[in-house]
């Protein structure tokens, strides 16, 4: 084994350990902010995997999109939602947890049998490496044009949704004293003034 292969093996092991550990942390830690930061670590180790696979462009794009955009958005969401209400303890919570565990284990078993059973066609071709940017660009504008455009429409929809939600008029906090807390069914919705009332006032 020469130096390059050794470095590759060690990096692969370190990255895998980092990714699995961080992913477990995302799921198991009770502090949601820690989970969000660990998610960034998962994405970074994934981008390390892409570098090991000679896909530098995809690795950089992974960091830009997932760490720089998606994860920051999640963090913003967590830090700006300032809801000071304790969660009510749910009765028979273990039932839901057990069901989740069963579903997750089933999925894991299914996926691992699939991975083990599939005869993977490992290509002997050299990785495209530095030519990847040109190849990806050509695919985007020829045979993958429709999925590419559909993805952008999806993002547009998400953006419009975000603007609609952000432009709602909330009731100011001081009006909501503890005596007039919303009924239990509306506990988890944001207090909002009905549209008509606002329109009538103007």
């Amino acid at each position, binding site marked *: 084994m020469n130096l390059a292969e050794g470095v590759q093996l060690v990096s692969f092991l370190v990255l895998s350990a980092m990714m699995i550990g961080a992913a477990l942390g995302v799921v198991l830690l009770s502090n949601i902010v820690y989970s969000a930061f660990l998610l960034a670590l998962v994405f970074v180790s994934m981008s390390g995997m892409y570098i090991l696979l000679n896909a*530098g462009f995809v690795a*950089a794009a992974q960091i*830009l999109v997932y760490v720089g955009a998606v994860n920051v958005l999640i963090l913003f969401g967590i*830090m700006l939602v300032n809801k000071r209400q304790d969660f009510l303890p749910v009765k028979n919570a273990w039932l839901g947890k057990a069901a989740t565990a069963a579903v997750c284990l089933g999925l894991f078993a299914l996926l691992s049998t699939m991975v083990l059973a599939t005869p993977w066609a490992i290509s002997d071709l050299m990785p495209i490496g*530095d030519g990847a940017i040109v190849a990806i660009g050509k695919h985007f504008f020829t045979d993958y044009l429709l999925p590419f455009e559909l993805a952008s429409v999806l993002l547009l929809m998400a953006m419009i949704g975000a603007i609609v939600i952000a432009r709602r008029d909330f009731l100011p906090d001081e009006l909501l004293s503890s005596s007039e807390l919303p009924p239990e069914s509306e506990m988890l919705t944001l207090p909002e003034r009905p549209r008509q009332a606002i329109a009538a006032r103007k």
Partner: protein
Amino acid sequence: MSVGIDLQSSFIELLQGYGLTPGVAKVVWMPLPMVLIVGAVTVLALVSTWLERKVSAAAQQRIGPEYMGPFGLLVPVADVVKLLFKEDIMPAKTDPWLFSLAPLLVFIPIFLSFLIVPFGQNLLISDLNIGIFLWISLSSIAPIGLLMAGYASNNKYSLLGGLRAAAQSISYELPLALAVLAVVMMSNSLSTIDIVNQQSGYGILSWNIWRQPIGFVIFWIAALAECERMPFDLPEAEEELVAGYQTEYSAVKFMLFYAGSYANLVLSALMVAVLYLGGWGFPISVSAIAGWIGISETTPWLQVITASLGIVMMLFKAYLLLFVAILLRWTVPRVRIDQLLDLGWKFLLPVSLANLLLTAGLKLTFPVAFGG
């Protein structure tokens, strides 16, 4: 195009002359440029803090630091020594892990980005194919560090500062990336070396600033906003937020933020030089001068002079831009947060999109001048 000096191959050949195998010789070479660049960047950042003090003083008709060394040149050293020996205070109710990790998350990507800053044809750590894209993607990690610092400090000012910093940095990344994209479209490559080579034909006349004036202005504004420089230094606006996300930090951790912000400023200035001001190119093409005097471009001493001239030109351009940034600091008042976001989203973003469209149109119409 002259090949210039290739230090790596000469060094490896030299070591092989002493009987080392090529593999071992390469391993011995690899850490050298990295250590050199980290040291050089630190010095450059320190010099820019000194420059900031001196130019600020001149802008306010003061003298500035004078007694510590000639022209107060030792002030940055004193800064570093002071911050190194200061007690590292961690406020009681902070989150210790995130609090310590945040400065590193801001600091490391900035130093990593110097991987692709070229000082000459072969004078960079790695001529990556994705080049400038690596810088953009690395600079998108910083907001996470800022949010982390703001959250971990357990302080309202810090959290507000962190959120502001992240919002600002995300908003201005878009015009920045679109301005870079217009340049990349002209040079048909993301590699910083190719971008500079594409501007090197006719000396100063072929620099991108003449072909991309709008892009240059957009990039400079967005870069200043990314570095949280004065017209856009809302995240640490003293009158409103004490010091933003840095409020609770002291000693080495504060030094990491401080050094990071100045290294980022130097990096942005170097990037402007690479993208718009011809990189290491002399205003008059060096190969043309060599042609007039009648010396071959491959003469060893000429190559050494060309390489040194390249480094000097690169630093000269960067520090000229830094000087402009410091003057701007004392000229322009700070914007409000709504003005900042309006400028980013409602002005710079549409203009940079229009600039991209214009560049594409010009590229199709005049392929000779716009790198068809």
